[in-house]
């Protein structure tokens, strides 16, 4: 096997909001071109891990490198899909406008989006199957449509590494399939996609790489090798297969 480049390298990362650490001494190397799930119980620090990689949360200690450089220098090759509940969808704007926000980063301060940015945004909307709703007020979208809009906004960023915080939360089966197909297509193009994920059943089908997290890193590696009962029990504290009453 050819040695793959490391897309995201995390060393000794520790994050604390108040007293107790949310993340403790995380070491993680994510190879380029994987579609990786981060799994773990509520409060395990999954979202926080993502936010500290992206500089939204200030870590107490540790370092994050993206293709060998700090995030500040690599912003232009990183895309982010936040949880859809993190914004107010009653904001007065349209679907296309939200997607265009994905182009703001490459534009920099003051400069306005032009024809090229609009064209790219429309293409992204088409990919997520939302082109017909481009002029719609965002308050009139269903949960699945909101998620698609956020995904389109990330696609417009045209990045190498994608971070997605629970993109499957509260969406119906049609949207879930549409999203996972787009993620798999990104992987095909050798992009690195990192997803906070909750549904353990779908991990082997959707992802090829997985990280078990519960404040500490429990395990990380190919799904085929490490997605097993031992690691699940270590992460969640119970064996989820035998704990369900039959």
């Amino acid at each position, binding site marked *: 096997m050819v040695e793959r480049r490391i897309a995201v390298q995390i060393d000794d990362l520790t994050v604390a909001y108040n007293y107790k650490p949310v993340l403790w001494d995380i070491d993680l190397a994510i190879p380029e071109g994987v579609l990786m799930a981060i799994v773990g119980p509520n409060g395990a620090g999954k979202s926080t891990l993502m*936010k500290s990689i*992206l*500089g*939204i949360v200030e870590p107490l200690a540790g370092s994050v490198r993206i293709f060998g450089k700090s995030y*500040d220098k690599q*912003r232009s090759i*990183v895309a*982010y899909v*936040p949880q859809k509940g*993190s*914004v*107010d969808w009653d*904001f*007065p*704007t*349209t679907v296309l*406008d*939200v997607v265009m*926000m994905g182009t*703001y*980063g490459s*534009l*920099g*301060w*003051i*400069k*306005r*989006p032009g024809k090229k940015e609009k064209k790219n945004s429309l293409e992204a909307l088409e990919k997520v199957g939302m082109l017909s709703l481009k002029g719609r*007020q965002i*308050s009139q979208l*269903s949960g699945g449509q909101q998620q698609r809009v956020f995904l389109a906004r990330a696609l417009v960023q045209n990045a190498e590494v994608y971070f997605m915080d629970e993109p499957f939360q509260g969406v119906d089966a*049609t949207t879930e399939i549409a999203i996972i197909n787009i993620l798999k297509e990104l992987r095909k193009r050798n992009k690195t996609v990192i997803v906070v994920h909750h549904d353990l059943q779908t991990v082997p089908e959707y992802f090829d790489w997985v990280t078990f997290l519960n404040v500490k890193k429990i395990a990380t590696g190919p799904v085929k090798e490490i997605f097993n009962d031992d690691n699940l029990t270590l992460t969640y504290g119970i064996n989820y297969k035998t704990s369900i009453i039959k």
Partner: protein
Amino acid sequence: MSFFEYLHLLFTDYTLRTTTLGTAILGAVCGMLGSFAVLRKQSLLGDAISHAALPGIVIMFLLTGTKNSSMLLLGALASGLLGAYWIKGIIKNTRLKSDTALGIILSVFFGFGMMLLTYTQKLPNANQAGLDKYLFGQAATLLTSDIWLLGIVAIACLIVLMTFWKEFKLMLFDPDFTNVLGFDTRKIDVLITTFIVLAIVLGLQTVGVVLMSALLLAPAAAARQWTNSLSAMVILAAIFGALSGIIGTAISATADNLSTGPIVVLVSAVFVFISFIFSPQRGLLFKEIKIWNNRKLLEEQKTLAFMYDIAATHEDITHPHTVKILNNFQGFTKKTLQKLVVKEYVNVNDNMWSLTKKGYNEAESLYSQYVNDDD
């Protein structure tokens, strides 16, 4: 006084002209900036800042002994900014939520300001009289120089808004994403907050510390009802704010002894009231009408569907049936039957009804419409 007499007065009377211009510009600036405060859910920040400005005014007077409004407003600016800074500090460093932080700063600063005000009024110096006008404002004291100052701030505010429009919009909608893209939200935040504080401080002389926040919020809240675009909202809010100033000044000028500030605020409240009820998209009235119409339509459709099921059991779909059968169907009323007749979906003869071809097709399309609706 007729409208034209008033218009003539507006151009000839110095005080009236200055007051009208002042309140109009102030209303426009506050409307624009208020849109941002409302969308950031920081409506009460303006209230806290305006109350926090009071001690600054009195301390400035005690230090310098002048009643020069520019000097006093400088004091207001300093203590207003200090208040805003402390509010943000409390939110960031304690577990208190923003409403609590706002409440604490508002009442502590205002209480301190009132204490200083009563203390100054007992001083043996005739000069202190009139400081209390900053509580409720006194638009008639506006001078040409104040108008210039207001105009300059309005233009500066407009330039900044247009220059950083993209960044403002991005931060209002999704602050985390803004940071991830590499825009420092702290810088954008400082810019917006500074202008909000500036607008509030300039409004103190006209509207006063107690009512100032209303002028910031009311036009914006009203504008939000009429549009789904941020730029249209900001423009509309500016127009509503300016109109509130112009109309409010006119009312207080034509009726004796009514102070301008409260009237301007009341006029802006009328805009809010009208917008909340009558706006076509979000207004209460149209919403109720829409819901009512929708219910009626659904009742008709359900009745038609019920008749369709009965008619479908016959080879001849237009075969008549007794009206009595319909009583088995809950939600049926004579009125809905009449409406269906008017729409030519149904014929009624004596106590017998029959579907028309048109009604049959309509009922059929209803079925497929609700079955294939996959939203």
